[in-house]
């Protein structure tokens, strides 16, 4: 597997929605190369007959009754909002308005 490089770190940081400074990009690239280098040793483990474990619990499909319960009051939920409009969280438009719409 090719070593991770600066442009890939920048791309992945974009996927993770994290703005990085140039200095961070340089530093993290070197550090992640070292960490991924240590992770590479997994390649040598024979896992051809081994199922993956997502969890160690002997549980699956935990069900409960679907009973209506009171929710938190709207004011409590919105109390921590960075910006709001009435009972809504206010954010920027995620799509530009088309002038011909």
């Amino acid at each position, binding site marked *: *597997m090719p070593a*991770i490089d600066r442009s*890939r*770190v920048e791309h*992945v*940081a*974009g*996927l*993770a*929605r*994290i*703005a*990085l*400074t140039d200095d*961070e990009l340089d*530093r*993290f690239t070197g*550090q*992640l190369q*070292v*960490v*991924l280098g*240590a*992770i*590479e*040793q*997994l*390649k040598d*483990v024979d*896992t051809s007959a*081994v*199922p*993956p*474990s*997502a*969890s*160690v*619990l*002997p*549980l699956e499909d*935990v069900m*409960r009754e679907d009973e209506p319960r009171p929710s*938190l009051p709207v004011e*409590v*939920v919105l*109390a*921590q*909002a*960075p*910006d709001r409009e009435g009972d809504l*969280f206010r*954010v*920027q*438009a*995620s799509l530009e308005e088309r002038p011909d719409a």
Partner: protein
Amino acid sequence: MREVPRTITETAQRLRSRELSAVELADAFLAAAEADPFNAWLHLAPEHAREQAKAADARLRAGDAPLLTGVPWACKDIIGTKGIVTTAASKILAGYIPAYDATVVTRLNERGAVMLGKTNLDEFAMGSSNENSAFGAVRNPWDPARVPGGSSGGSAAAVAAGQAVFGLGTDTGGSIRQPGALSGVVGMKPTYGRVPRYGVVAFASSLDQVGPLTSSVEDAAIVCEAIFGIDPHDATTIDRPIDVRRDLDAGVKGLRLGVPKEYFSPAGVEPGVTKAIRAAIAQFEKLGASIVDVSLPSTDKGLAVYYIVQPSEASANLARYDGVRYGLRVAGRDLVDTYRKTRGAGFGPEVKRRLILGTYALSAGYYDAYYVKAQKVRTIIKREFDAVFETVDALVTPTSPTVAFPIGAKMNDPLQMYLNDVFTLPANIAGLPGVSVPCGLSEGLPVGLQIIANSYQERMLFRVAAAFEHATEHHQLHPMKAAAA
């Protein structure tokens, strides 16, 4: 008041003899916490604590008080507390006030315990030195130039320094046991599924578990008794009731204790640590246990598995910090730019590194090579533990390869920092319970002995730990005593 009590059992006894009241006790501990020189606390809650202490005194007078009533405790600031700031030591949550209590907090409240405030940690519990806090490093009460371990370093330091009788921490790869070892207190991680994580800020959900930091093994069992048990709000909790304190005095005579050779490989393990652990093993032998050499051949793959699974889960869990509903928002030119700027400004370097690593491991083209591969090796590690527990009752190992290291020593070398957890993270990968107990000093700094038991065998875990504690005096050492000596 003569010296404040150090253990839950002593506190409970002195409260019941009316030698002191819960309010006096809360005031004494709050004063110690306010004067804390180690940066162990992020927020104190004096009014809340005094109110709880008053209620505790009423309950003690009425005579229906559980053991934890009136006992002052420290809550890691990743555990949500209704109406009291909870930040996970991150700028992205600065000033965040939860709308509800975590189940573990509710359970301690119901028993009348007195929460003094919230303790410092590595941001989102990502670290093993407590230097990754957005609000400053925690100092080790044994030597303020050194780290207390992490990520539950604030709770560990507060208990070590006598600023709280017990603390709660969270352990994803060693974050209770390792600071317990480096700060000279008992730190215990329960079996995955024992303790509800409802209301705890999620980090890596297949690994995270809440547990106690205390000054005695019995105290750790008392806290477990309070917080264990199924919770309808957390579908990963299991329904297997257990009398955790039953075998505390049963001793180790006739037990088979495994010593996995991979935990004693010379590379990286300090000679002083090996010496203290070997002495502890000899002590077990003297107490009548059989010592069995065992092998867990994939131990050296644990770190690689952990540094794929854990960042991957973190990258999904921390996607919620987007500046929309709560927490920091830094406005950008459009919504996506707002996400990027908010997360760029709100997360510290270690969190960013892990989110990038996790996103990378989960991204198209790499998912099978990294994430699925790590999950398969996780199966192998679990099977190796299963096989070993067919022949032994518990495992004994060092908790950490080193004693507390100087602040700043590993901050520019993430891989070196990650290696601090090399002996603790296998128990998280396999979901097993583990405890670190003080087992002496190396160059004046505490060494922790780790005991690991099979899943749901906390009674065996505490039995072995208590036998060691009863036979030795290491747990009675604390930094104030060491300084006076």
